[in-house]
């Protein structure tokens, strides 16, 4: 007995068949309780009978019972329990990851995935899976390449091809984008000959060694070939996810299959029981880590049927009415679903919802619950880390880390972590600012790159945004750092219904004052937004990522009031290098030069130059983040204008700087084109002459700034 339970105890914690945290944990626990109770009853009875034989029966009967019958009964009891256990074991739901399945893991007619709706009967069964992977293996094995780009839109095709590649010991490369150029780039990154396995006919032409999955599956293999399933090694199988990365430069992230399965194992331990009651459908491509983990590997491991086609749009949630579905989605799509949902929601039957890729604002999450019927479970993770933590924001904004994830806070305040899903000792440092709580959970405080300095004071733009959201009148807020004469914050706010009602007919300055007062207890005066815009929606790209530049453009100052108030003329500027003859080169301060691109005297010109990082113009404004301040831009404009537009025998000097509108940051060494246009006026007029300027990239794609300066002339050289 002791031996048997010792075995069980060992099984509890480790090994491929570990029970703790497994899908069947509850079933096993319930069964063990019953068995223990049965044994206890048996021993009580046995003990009673034994005692009876001692005191009431002859010695021969005592010997017969205690020396023979008792042991036979025990043996019989054990045999019966073993038989029941085997029957029970077959009906216990089991998690079978790719690295552990055998041809007999599931029944031949078990449904793996389906087309359209489950009820349509277009099913792909376990037998189809075995036959299909066998057919794919034949093709894959025959090709010499070790690295394979896998691209299948159909989750069913994807699963079969993925399993076949892993069975053949191939390295699987995934990319959500697939174009001829991209495949070539990926192949170059892979640095060896690469093959492509896809279900997109258009993609076949991208690569010399391409295979079309649907055609291979037209001829599935039959038993006995389909009854083979070469084992997949969890640690030795590698999957490389080629992502665009946050910086925009593509990046290859490698995971072992074991790392990915560790992520699945946590989900199964946490929610497996619940998920078993659902069919699964996804809005996320399997070529992202989130889609791969949740849309393909998770349902395979659980044995729950998944839909082969991706749900392309929010409207298609309506098709899921009827059966309980687990939906795998992203915030942008859920937000859209809220907008397009029919009155009363989509009417889904006990749905389940995962979301990842970004945080869902609380109000959106509540709206999602209203239209889909369940509060989304958000997963925090990245391509490098796989899943890290989860939350259901109904219960609070805190994230609960997955089992086995270690967290720490870096000196910069960022979240660092290590987990079974990350290979290596050093772990991974995210770009997310974190607040670690004592109970092991954590709060995210926005992106580290959202931290700016306003007049030497550090502030997280996300924090200011969150403070604004907390006032209850704001649906969304975007805070940007701007600079004219000084650095300041500016806030673009989308009011919610309560906010709109509250501020109806109120002058804007009072609305501003309301928000300023709301922020006052939390922020220094300097960090309270100086400019405010109330908009219907924030500029976003289709993925729901905010367009910071376009938010900043909302704050372009209005045109200055004309005419100018008369000002005393400014003292002339310090002497500049002697007036250069009008050649193709203009002299700029700090020993720099500009070349003349176009010049139509006496009023318009454009000049080309660039400013090296070593230029004093970039000194000290933002350490580590060079920007070209307004005063420097005025100086450059003046230097060019003086050389180009000074009338014969006279010199232009600055009367007043009128305005400057920043649209983009001027980076060191960027090629720049400065366009100048002097407004025409009567020759004798003594009023200041206005010069308009625009600083652009040479092709005009980027406009860095525009502005105006008023000039006067004085006789003689300066």
């Amino acid at each position, binding site marked *: 007995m002791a031996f048997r339970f010792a075995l069980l105890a060992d099984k509890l914690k480790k090994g491929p068949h570990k029970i703790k945290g497994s899908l069947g944990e509850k079933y096993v626990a319930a069964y063990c309780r019953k068995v223990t109770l049965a044994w206890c009853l048996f021993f009580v009875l046995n003990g009673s009978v034994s005692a009876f034989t001692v005191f009431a029966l002859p010695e021969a009967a005592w010997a017969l019972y205690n020396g023979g019958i008792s042991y036979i009964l025990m043996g019989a009891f054990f045999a019966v329990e073993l038989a029941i256990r085997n029957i029970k074991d077959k009906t216990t739901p089991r998690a079978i990851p790719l690295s552990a399945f055998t041809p007999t893991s599931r029944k031949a007619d078990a449904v793996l995935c389906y087309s359209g709706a489950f009820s349509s009967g277009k099913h792909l069964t376990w037998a189809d899976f075995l036959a299909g992977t066998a057919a794919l293996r034949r093709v894959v094995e025959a090709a010499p390449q070790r690295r394979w780009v896998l691209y299948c839109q159909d989750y069913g095709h994807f699963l079969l091809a993925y399993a076949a590649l892993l069975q053949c010991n191939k390295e699987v490369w995934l990319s959500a984008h697939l174009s001829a150029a991209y495949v070539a780039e990926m192949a170059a990154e892979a640095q060896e000959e690469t093959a492509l396995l896809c279900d997109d006919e258009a993609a076949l032409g991208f690569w010399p060694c391409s295979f079309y999955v649907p055609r291979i599956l037209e001829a599935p293999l039959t038993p006995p070939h389909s009854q083979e399933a070469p084992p997949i090694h969890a640690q030795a199988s590698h999957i490389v996810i080629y992502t665009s990365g946050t910086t925009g430069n593509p990046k290859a992230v490698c995971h072992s299959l074991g790392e990915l399965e560790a992520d699945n194992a946590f989900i199964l331990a946490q929610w497996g029981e619940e998920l078993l009651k659902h069919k699964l459908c996804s809005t996320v491509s399997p070529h992202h880590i989130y889609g791969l983990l949740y849309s393909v590997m998770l349902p395979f491991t659980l044995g729950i049927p998944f839909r082969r086609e991706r749900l392309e749009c929010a409207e298609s949630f309506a098709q899921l009415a009827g059966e309980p579905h687990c939906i795998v989605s992203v915030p942008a799509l859920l937000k859209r679903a809220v907008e397009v949902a029919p009155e009363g929601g989509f009417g889904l039957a006990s749905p389940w919802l995962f979301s990842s890729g970004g945080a869902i604002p609380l109000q959106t999450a509540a709206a999602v619950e209203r239209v889909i019927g369940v509060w989304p479970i958000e997963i925090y993770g990245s391509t490098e880390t796989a899943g890290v933590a989860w939350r259901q924001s109904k219960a609070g904004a805190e994230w609960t880390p997955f089992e086995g994830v270690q967290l720490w806070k870096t000196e910069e305040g960022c979240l660092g972590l290590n987990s079974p899903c990350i290979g290596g000792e050093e772990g991974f440092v995210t770009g997310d600012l974190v607040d670690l709580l004592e109970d092991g959970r954590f709060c995210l405080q926005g992106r580290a790159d959202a931290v700016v300095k306003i007049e030497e004071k550090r502030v997280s733009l996300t924090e200011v945004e969150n403070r604004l959201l907390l006032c209850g009148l704001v649906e969304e807020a975007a805070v940007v750092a701007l600079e004219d004469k000084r650095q300041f914050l500016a806030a673009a706010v989308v009011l919610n219904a309560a906010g709109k009602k509250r501020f109806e007919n109120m002058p804007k300055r009072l609305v501003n004052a309301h928000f300023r007062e709301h922020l*006052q207890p939390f922020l220094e005066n*300097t960090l309270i937004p100086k400019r405010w815009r109330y908009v219907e929606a924030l500029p976003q790209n289709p993925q729901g990522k905010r367009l910071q530049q376009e938010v900043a453009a909302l704050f372009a100052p209005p045109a200055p009031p004309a005419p100018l108030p008369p000002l005393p003329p400014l003292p002339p500027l310090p002497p500049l290098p002697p007036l250069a003859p009008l050649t193709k080169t203009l002299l700029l301060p700090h020993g720099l030069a500009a070349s003349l691109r176009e010049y139509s005297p006496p009023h318009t010109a454009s000049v080309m130059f660039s400013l090296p990082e070593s230029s004093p113009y970039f000194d000290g404004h933002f350490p580590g983040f060079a920007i070209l301040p307004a005063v420097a831009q005025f100086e450059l404009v003046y230097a060019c204008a003086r050389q180009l537009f000074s009338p014969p025998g006279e010199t232009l000097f600055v009367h007043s700087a009128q305005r400057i509108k920043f649209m983009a940051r001027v980076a060191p060494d960027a090629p720049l084109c400065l366009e100048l246009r002097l407004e025409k006026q009567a020759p004798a007029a003594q009023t200041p002459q206005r010069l308009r300027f625009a600083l652009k990239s040479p092709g005009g794609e980027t406009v860095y700034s525009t502005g105006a300066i008023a000039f006067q002339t004085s006789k003689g050289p300066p």
Partner: protein
Amino acid sequence: MGAGELKLEIKQLIVSALELEDLQPENIVDTEPLFGEGLGLDSIDALELGVALKKKFGVTFSAENTDNKKHFASINALAAYIEAESGQ
């Protein structure tokens, strides 16, 4: 110069020198604090405003002067200070 006129000029100066948006000079209340709550100006604005006031009214706010805070408390306080200074 009448007191009312002076106050209006100060207000105009504040709005133009600090490029305040959404605000007309007459929206500024004479007794309202300029910094913190009220107008919500900050220390950088104070520097800027100090320069503008010096240019326009010739009054100086030295770094050592602990009364600066008092002078900048409100439009009323500023007007009183400017009047006192220019009266000397």
